[in-house]
């Protein structure tokens, strides 16, 4: 059994967790080009080495950040998202009037 140290719930079986993708900067959807958006949505570094990712503890609905080695399968560090995001993130999404 592989153990994921959850910052909220402590060490738990990794089958309780859901992988949520790399932590990365979203381009502004209203301003970026199609190519930039495609890069963000589809292309990935798919790195062999240490990656910083979003993970979800499904039973408690808690999202956090994990640093993980994709070759050795070691989990190096997990921490609450507030360590990386210390202020509110504005997503700059289209408002109802701007949408169709």
């Amino acid at each position: 059994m592989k153990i994921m140290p959850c910052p909220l719930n402590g060490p738990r079986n990794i089958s309780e967790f859901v992988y949520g993708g790399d932590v990365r900067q979203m381009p502004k959807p209203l301003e970026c080009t199609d190519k930039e958006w495609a890069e963000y949505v589809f292309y990935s570094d798919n790195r062999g080495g240490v990656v910083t990712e979003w993970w979800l503890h499904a039973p408690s609905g808690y999202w956090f950040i994990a640093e993980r080695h994709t070759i050795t399968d070691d989990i190096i560090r997990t921490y609450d998202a507030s360590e990386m995001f210390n202020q509110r993130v504005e997503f700059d999404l289209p408002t109802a009037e701007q949408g169709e």
Partner: protein
Amino acid sequence: MPFSLLKYGLKDDYPFEKDADFPLPSDLKSHYDVVIIGGGGHGVATAYYLAKYHGITNVAVLEKGYLGGGNTARNTAVIRSNYMTPEGVKFYSASVKLFEELSHEFDFNIMYTQRGQLTLAHTDATVRAFRQRAEVNKHFGGRTELITPKEIRELVPTLNMNPAHLPVLAGLWHLDGATARHDAVAWGYAKGATQRGVELHQLTEVTGVDIDNGRVTGVKTNRGSISCGCVVQAVAGHSSLMAEKAGFKMPITTYPLQAMVTQPVKPFLNPLVSSSALHCYVQQTSRGEMVFGGGSDPYPLYNTRSTMELKESLLAHAIEMFPFMANLRLLRQWAGITDMTSDYSPIMGLSPVQNYYVDAGWGTWGFKATPICGKMMAEVVASGGKIPDLIAPFAMSRFDTFKQVNEMGATAASH
């Protein structure tokens, strides 16, 4: 045969160079017209078709491990063309046709056996989807039909018709479904290619790619640098890492895929059987072993380790389908690392680097495409980058224009 064996037994210099299937290792030349990175099925098939149909023989296949030792040796050797999209069906049907003749073409037995593949539907929605797949298949030259539970029972008497309380409502019966010895496919292509002058360099790892003005000019390896006219990258699970050396990103995420076999038993299962809801496929090899495969691992990794969780869930489902298999023992377990694309279709053709062609995104469906992919990539190389119609929909640039080829519904086990 026994006499020739005796002859070899009495000689002390076996194997004779002239009789050996592959030439002895040689030094790298300073220049090749074509460098193929990756000595798996796809790489050597490309080399074979280049040499045989296009007369291009100044070709080096560079393999960091040994011939066919990656995913070519790790797949579950399923050959089928019952896909969902017209683009996919046309492409994989062409592959099935090449597979049928491959033993003759090589004069080497790849143990190709057409046994039919049966996919089980457990919900009304799946039955509807299967009906569509059967029609698309028939239209584009495959042999696929929807069959009833009664016919399924006749075809596979040992199958539990109510596995995990998911009654079998119908089956997608694909007559073209087949299996072959996957190592032999790589060996056959490599033998045919090297006999025509292609060089296969094993234990030769590409460590860098030389690019001049947006155009590839050579590669660096652990055995020295070589210059080349063009490069074909066919490295499966390591596609993103190799592309990074050439300076571009790919729309690929690498996940492990685990599979396993049991001890051998008497032949009882002829078709390849898979269940869409149980995420499991089961087949019996010609040796009698039962092969199980399922979905990919739940998170990306470049590691072929095995996990208890996957064994438990996969075997639980396999035993639901064939309850008596609970008495069998597992013999081997392994994993391959697969280059998954988000639309479950491959990537073939041009890359952002000129004369650097990619053959990637083969996820869990690469083996069955080996012949046609090799043939198409050889055409791309020989024509200097002109893309044949058959693989035009699978260009990497489809992700930039949001024109994916969605094959998600067509995987034997959901990934």
